């Protein structure tokens, strides 16, 4: 039946196409001359597909281009895409006002221009409008004196823009800026892909202030490569960046990883820089990712040491399970951070938190992710209360993300 339909379509389509405006180049056929011997179904199908391919080629190369439709400028191939994410967050706790806010709207635009197999340019621009959480740690010494959603902020950030030259599997050189290959969440920090919105604490903060555990973007040069081993595959990254506290110098970072090419990836990361008044600074981390058919686990550890400050440490484990061929994802997470150095407008704001999370993602199609998540933030030790004000709080988060 399908064959009959295809034959009918092919009988009429050329007549319809050529019967109207004449193309600048006629469609040619490479089909073999008709022979008297009857053709097999396979041969006929091949011919039909060949004709369809030729029509498609003619449509794309001659018809569309002659109509001044969008075509790559210089690049041999340009791919265009991006993501959008929107979120509603409800928060509450013992010494704070219970509140809800439609607090985040993020739009990312991605573009990749491929000049040839080994040369391409990749860029991503993120535009955002958000109501960030002011006084995220509920410190009475700050203004406002209690945790609350603040005024709206908006901005545009070039998150990635690099030229890539691939000399071999072992030598891939990128120039520009991009997500830093430090752990898992830092290098794959696409908001729309996180199961838990905004990801683990070591890759983000609720008020947008850097926790200083690792610099998030490489800048300048990034050299990477990988090689097959008897069992699996191993790779490296070497990169430069500009330290936030000392822009007169250049920092460096590296990563080593191994993967069994199937389900397990292990990595070690390092960053080092002269942070000026904060002293010489080193950050190191370890990560593990295990992916199975119906779930997996991600865990990361990171610590930064600075000669002029106390250590900052963070780690988390996030197992997840998928149902209905990945349409539903259930996750739980235990996420720890200790940042004794945080200062906001000259007021000390140290915090040590265990964040427990659980939630569900629904992906009606792989490009769309709808999330519902619950987070419980449990402040520890001397950071549990400040001047009698409790800091614990919970957050319920509903968000929707789409990649296109």
């Amino acid at each position, binding site marked *: 039946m399908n064959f009959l339909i295809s034959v009918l379509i092919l009988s009429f389509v050329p007549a319809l196409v050529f019967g109207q405006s004449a193309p600048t180049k006629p469609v040619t056929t490479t089909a073999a001359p008709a022979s008297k011997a009857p053709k097999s179904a396979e041969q006929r199908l091949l011919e039909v597909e060949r004709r369809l391919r030729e029509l498609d080629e003619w449509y794309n190369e001659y018809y569309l281009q002659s109509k001044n439709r969008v075509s790559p400028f210089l690049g041999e191939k340009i791919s265009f895409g991006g993501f959008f994410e929107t979120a509603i967050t409800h928060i509450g706790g013992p010494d704070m006002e219970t509140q809800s806010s439609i607090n985040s709207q993020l739009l990312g635009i991605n573009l990749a221009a491929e000049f040839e197999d080994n040369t391409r340019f990749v860029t991503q621009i993120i535009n955002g409008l958000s109501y960030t959480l002011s006084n995220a740690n509920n410190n009475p010494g700050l203004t406002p004196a209690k945790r609350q959603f603040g005024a709206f902020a908006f901005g545009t950030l070039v998150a990635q823009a690099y030229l890539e030259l691939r000399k071999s599997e072992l030598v891939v050189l990128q120039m520009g800026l991009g997500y830093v290959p430090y752990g898992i969440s830092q290098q794959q920090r696409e908001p729309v892909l996180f199961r838990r919105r905004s990801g683990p604490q070591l890759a983000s903060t609720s008020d947008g202030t850097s926790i200083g555990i690792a610099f998030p973007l490489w800048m300048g040069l990034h050299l990477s490569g990988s090689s097959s081993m008897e069992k699996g*595959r191993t790779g490296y990254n070497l990169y430069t960046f500009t330290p936030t506290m000392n822009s007169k110098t250049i920092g460096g970072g590296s990563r080593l990883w191994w993967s069994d090419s199937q389900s397990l990836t292990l990595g070690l990361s390092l960053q080092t820089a002269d942070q000026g008044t904060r002293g010489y600074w080193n950050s190191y981390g370890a990560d593990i990712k295990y992916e199975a058919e119906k779930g997996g686990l991600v865990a990361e550890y990171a610590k930064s040491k600075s000669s002029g400050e106390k250590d900052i440490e963070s780690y988390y484990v996030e197992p997840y399970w998928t149902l209905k061929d990945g349409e539903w994802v259930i996750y739980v997470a235990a996420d720890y951070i200790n940042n004794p150095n945080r200062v906001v407008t000259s007021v000390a704001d140290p915090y040590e938190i265990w964040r427990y999370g659980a939630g569900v993602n629904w992906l009606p199609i792989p490009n769309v992710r709808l999330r519902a998540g619950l987070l419980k933030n449990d402040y520890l030790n001397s950071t549990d209360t400040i001047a009698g004000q409790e800091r614990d709080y919970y957050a319920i988060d509903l968000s929707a993300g789409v990649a296109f």
Partner: protein
Amino acid sequence: MKSLMRFAYYFILLTLLGAQSSIAAEGVTEELVFIVNGNNPVNEISANEIRDFYFKRKRLWATGESVRFIDRTLTSQIHEMFVRRILRKSNSDVELFWIGQKLYTGDSAPLRETSDSSTIQFVSTFKGAIGYVSSATSIADQNVKAVKVTGAKKED
């Protein structure tokens, strides 16, 4: 009370982790034949290499030729078989992988062909191409050859 809740939390977490199993049998694929261009000297390939080619972790053959992986349309049965037995992931995970790659590296998923015959045609044209077809399809008299696959998952 806090410690009790924390204990309960870890208990649930570990129980759920323990319930996760992914034991895959090793063997040779049935009904799925991997083909390469007739001029490619390779005769045998491991499932790990196929995964590296598919996910673009490895982009060159030993000869230095660029790898061009030809996938099949997502809704086809043969694609489902490929995902389950060779990639050992869910269709959704594979799609999410490519969405991620597109966003943070600019890489796109391999070209997807609709039929065995168009896959054969593509592989016969490009020296570095690799694709998969049904074992019921004849590849005789075409500029392609079947390669032996090791380490694939047996039929469930």
